[in-house]
């Protein structure tokens, strides 16, 4: 795991925690790790966000949602998109991983396990419904760019697996 230092102003954190990824509503943008900095100068908030995938269509919405949430709380917000360092699925917090699983999306594993799983070498992705690891990949690309599509051989339910990206 790569620990990335991210500076988020204390009084802004609860507000940003209310903003979620529109495609994964249970995951706050803080838990997703897309907020790279949040600084405050008086009532002016300056937020930097980074996309999970280059073409992530949620970024524009996330930017607007941040501005709206901060405006509601009485701040004036400026949101900038940055590309470096590139987002990594390691930046999803523990809390975020739990939220994903409860929502029905298998959280990303480490790179080595992920590769084995996506190449079909080992059955290690755990079904978020019945917790069985007797699962198989249906497609490397799922409902959004960040997910792969899996199916559980035990409970027969299809589910999304959040791909590892480091």
């Amino acid at each position, binding site marked *: 795991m790569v620990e990335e230092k991210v500076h988020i102003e204390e009084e802004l954190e609860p507000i940003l925690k209310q903003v979620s990824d529109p495609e994964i509503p249970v995951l706050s943008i803080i838990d997703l790790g897309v907020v790279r900095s949040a600084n405050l100068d008086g009532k002016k908030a300056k937020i930097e966000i980074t996309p999970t995938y280059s*073409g992530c269509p949620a970024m524009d919405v996330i930017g607007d949602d941040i501005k709206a949430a901060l405006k509601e709380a009485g701040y004036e917000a400026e949101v900038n998109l940055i590309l470096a360092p590139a987002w990594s699925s390691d930046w999803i917090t523990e809390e975020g991983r739990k939220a994903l699983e409860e929502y029905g999306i298998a959280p990303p594993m480490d790179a080595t396990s992920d590769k084995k799983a996506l190449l079909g070498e080992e059955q290690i992705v755990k079904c978020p419904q019945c917790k069985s690891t007797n699962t198989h990949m249906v497609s490397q690309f799922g409902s959004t760019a960040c997910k792969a599509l899996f199916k559980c051989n035990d409970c027969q339910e299809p589910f999304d697996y959040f791909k590892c990206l480091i």
Partner: protein
Amino acid sequence: MNKDFLIKYIYGIADNALILGQRLGELTGHGPTLEVDIATTNISLDLFGQVRSYFQYAAQLSEKEITEDDIAFLRTEREYLNVLLVEQPNRDFAFVIGRQFLFDHFHFLLLTEMQKSHDQTLVAIAKKSLKEVSYHKRFSSDWIKRLGDGTEESKQKIQTAIDDLWRFTDELFHLTEDDKKAVEEGIGVDVSKLKETYYKNVAEILEEATLEVPELKYFQEGGKKGIHSEHMGYLLTDMQYMQRTYPGMKW
């Protein structure tokens, strides 16, 4: 410093992603299976995302008041600098996969090298894109093996596609005058040096897929200089019509 060469260099890279993204986008709702439909359009989306980063940067560098949309949608055919390979039509699924495979392996090597550029914006885009392209490469290479080592019919179709598209691969390694300038400045990648590794990597997978590696002496070129195949005009008409009909339209 005159940034024209850099802007052209960026177009050369980004236009490949733009035009291939457009081709893949044509498959939306038309893929042979739901999974493949989703995969190809996901790849398309990744490529468009990368294009946005490149064009936003090019628009910043430009002395003219232009936006990423102007660059993407309002140039004339001769001003697009993509290679001929990516504009080739979706003749059948084998052509879609063959084109993707031949491009992904190049794209991967290009971005790997671009991480060493002296231009920090290009480095950031390369690092970001490389993660996505690794997935693309795995997807297309897997399908090459599946089709090649599949049924008699799938094998024959993918071999036909590879044989047909092979003549466009040499152009990937040509350098335009602007590319050369970008290489001299330590910004651009000398793609001619990627050629040997590319053909080696591609051949390995073709052999694993029990396919023949084409032996060809004659190659086609032109796209990098803006001289495109007959397919390009149709593609652009489709891609540009909204901006041409409703100038300045935004989502």
